[in-house]
């Protein structure tokens, strides 16, 4: 970045100036370069794993090609990627918000379940409402239920000091069983079925499919816009509002925040509730856009994948957006890998896990690819 004539002293000055002007440079490396190398390293290790399980190199090449084709290679692939990414982004945003406030919320899965359930119940309870009222009402009830459910953990933390990691995990388990129970209630269970499955929502409560006019098999739905709007909303909330500042201050240093007059208890409850609202929205979007009903397994681990998405996105709304798209692509592409190359879907899980391992250890990535990063200024200085 500095030309060769400049001596190293000026170089440091320039760098410091740059740092002040654009504090994002280090962040840029963390946000973009580390993940890129992490993905590359994970793919290489994934290939080695396949080799180790006696998959021949031609099949490995074909499977990575299928991964690419299945995630971005066609209109259907892009549609599938976006469909898979939508709930991950929403739930991931919620978790990111919690992480920023210093809350390690493991409860997205339960919040998704409760939110989705509420959205479905609202949907089939008021079928006579027109869609412009019913759809927002479904989404709202999903978000509020998610917020309430996460709020329990927030309140427990604020009032009793119960750690949110424990309480959210426990609330997940409660949510699983609560859904099982609710799905057997006569007013929820689909008539004529003995298994736990809810009634379907009316067609006009569904999030409209965006590309149905091209091909009825394209599943991408209007929830994508909701996820995108949520990205900007969370960015605004976190970085442009007083409440967001309080979240971040509490996350950075709870003691300092308290001395600065931020009510920590209130902040915890609010942060958890906002996170839960987003997760509840993720659940609602999933049932209103994709499934149109609730079954016990409908959350499908999205709440746990979203933790990875939030971490991968460095808890930044735009990072979460990219990470969600990546995970959505891996899911859609993984399916194609199975179809085209006959490689096990479990391998995709391994590659995802490898990516997370590398992202979680940026030092490792920097050590493997030293030429990919700017050297720290202290090394250049005298």
């Amino acid at each position: 970045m500095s030309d060769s004539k400049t001596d190293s002293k000026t170089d440091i000055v320039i760098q410091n100036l740059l740092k002040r002007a654009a504090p994002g440079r280090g962040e840029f490396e963390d946000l973009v370069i580390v993940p890129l190398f992490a993905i590359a390293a994970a793919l290489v290790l994934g290939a080695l794993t396949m080799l180790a399980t006696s998959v021949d190199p031609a099949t490995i090449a074909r499977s990575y090609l299928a991964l690419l084709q299945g995630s971005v290679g066609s209109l259907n692939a892009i549609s599938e990627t976006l469909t898979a990414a939508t709930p991950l982004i929403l739930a991931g945003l919620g978790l990111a918000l919690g992480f920023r406030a210093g809350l390690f919320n493991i409860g997205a899965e339960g919040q998704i379940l409760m939110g989705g359930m509420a959205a479905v119940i609202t949907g089939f309870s008021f079928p006579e409402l027109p869609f412009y009222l019913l759809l927002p009402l479904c989404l709202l009830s999903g978000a509020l239920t998610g917020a309430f459910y996460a709020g329990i953990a927030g309140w427990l933390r604020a009032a009793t000091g119960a750690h949110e990691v424990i309480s959210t995990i426990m609330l997940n388990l409660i949510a699983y069983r609560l859904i099982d129970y609710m799905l057997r209630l006569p007013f929820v269970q689909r008539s004529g079925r003995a298994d736990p499955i809810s009634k379907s929502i009316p067609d006009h409560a569904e999030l409209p499919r965006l590309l149905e006019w091209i091909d009825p098999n394209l599943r991408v739905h209007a929830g994508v816009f909701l996820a995108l709007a949520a990205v900007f909303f969370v960015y605004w909330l976190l970085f442009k509002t007083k409440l967001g500042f309080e979240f971040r201050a509490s996350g950075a240093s709870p003691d300092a925040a308290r001395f600065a007059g931020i009510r920590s208890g209130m902040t915890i409850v609010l942060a958890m509730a906002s996170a839960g609202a987003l997760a509840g929205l993720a659940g609602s979007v999933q049932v209103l856009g994709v499934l149109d009903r609730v079954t016990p397994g409908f959350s499908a681990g999205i709440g746990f994948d979203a933790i990875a998405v939030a971490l991968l996105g460095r808890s930044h709304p735009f990072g979460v957006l990219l990470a969600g798209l990546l995970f959505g692509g891996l899911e859609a592409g993984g399916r194609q890998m199975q179809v085209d190359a006959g490689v096990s879907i479990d391998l995709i899980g391994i590659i995802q896990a490898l990516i997370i391992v590398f992202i979680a250890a940026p030092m490792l990535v920097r050590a493997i690819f030293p030429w990919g990063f700017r050297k720290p200024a202290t090394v250049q200085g005298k």
Partner: protein
Amino acid sequence: MNFVGKKSAGIAAAVALFLASATAASAFTACQVTDTGGIDDNSFNQTAWKGVLDAKEKLGIEGRFLESQAETDYEANINSLLGGNCDVIITVGFLLGDATKKAAEANPEQKFSIVDYAYDPVVPNILGQVYATDEAAFLAGYLAAGMTKSGVLGVFGGINIPPVTIFMDGFHAGAAYYNEQKGASVSVLGWDPKAREGLFTNNFDSLDDGRAFAQNLYDEGADIIVPVAGPVGLGSATLAAELGPDKLKIIGVDADLYLTDPERKQVYLTSITKRMDATVFDVIKQAMDGKFEGGILLGSLASGGVDLAPFHDMEEAVPAELKQELEAIRAGIIDGSITVAPK
């Protein structure tokens, strides 16, 4: 590499052989979407996939499968096969019923077949494969009632859906028939055919649940247990293997588990087999021969679509008299003189 080479050479040879009789054979592709248990569950999905493998071997077709990891995958998996040039798409399991119907209606040209689901009214491009599993389960119930020492039998299911509960109905009715004939009082825990309620793990993949449910039934006195939950039953078998088959025996479902689960083969009294491999093979053959038609394909005791597996190691333990009675009941079920419906 070498192995793969040999295998593909074998396939190529089979294809070449078949090309002589049917020119379109090499292009025919059967695709399967599994339920969440996975393709290697030793039972439900694996048996259905075996039908494709058999067709691969005997008819020289191509076969592909997609595993569903969660219920959200069903529709997506079926969709991704739509673009994959499948001549017939076979979905495995009742829970895929809605997704299959949706895809079939959106793609009327595509042939579908589903295991364990019958559509009413018939969807013209779906052939439903259904099984009179209660006929074979009835035999198993009678057998178990004749074999139990404690007088208590146990059964539990995966999810409360018809293709699962039909096993439990038949088993319950078989044991009741034994009581009626012998004036015995063998009880069956885990299923109430009148209330349609019973023990369910609510999943088809947790081996831990299989173990825990079997433990509960064992603690209640059951010495023969039928887990109707795909791979979940392997957890029950593990418990039985630890306790020893004298204390707890397992009756397998779907496949002959003595053969598919050799590590724990000593615990299986028998298995209630549901020959999904046979019906899947038939569907593929029909589709290849251009005889495919929407509707229902029924596997029964008479057609061999459902049956009781051999006793294998337990052959000695089952009294000859009981075997004869079972033969008589089998004949009675086939000719209709014995009804297997729950009373």
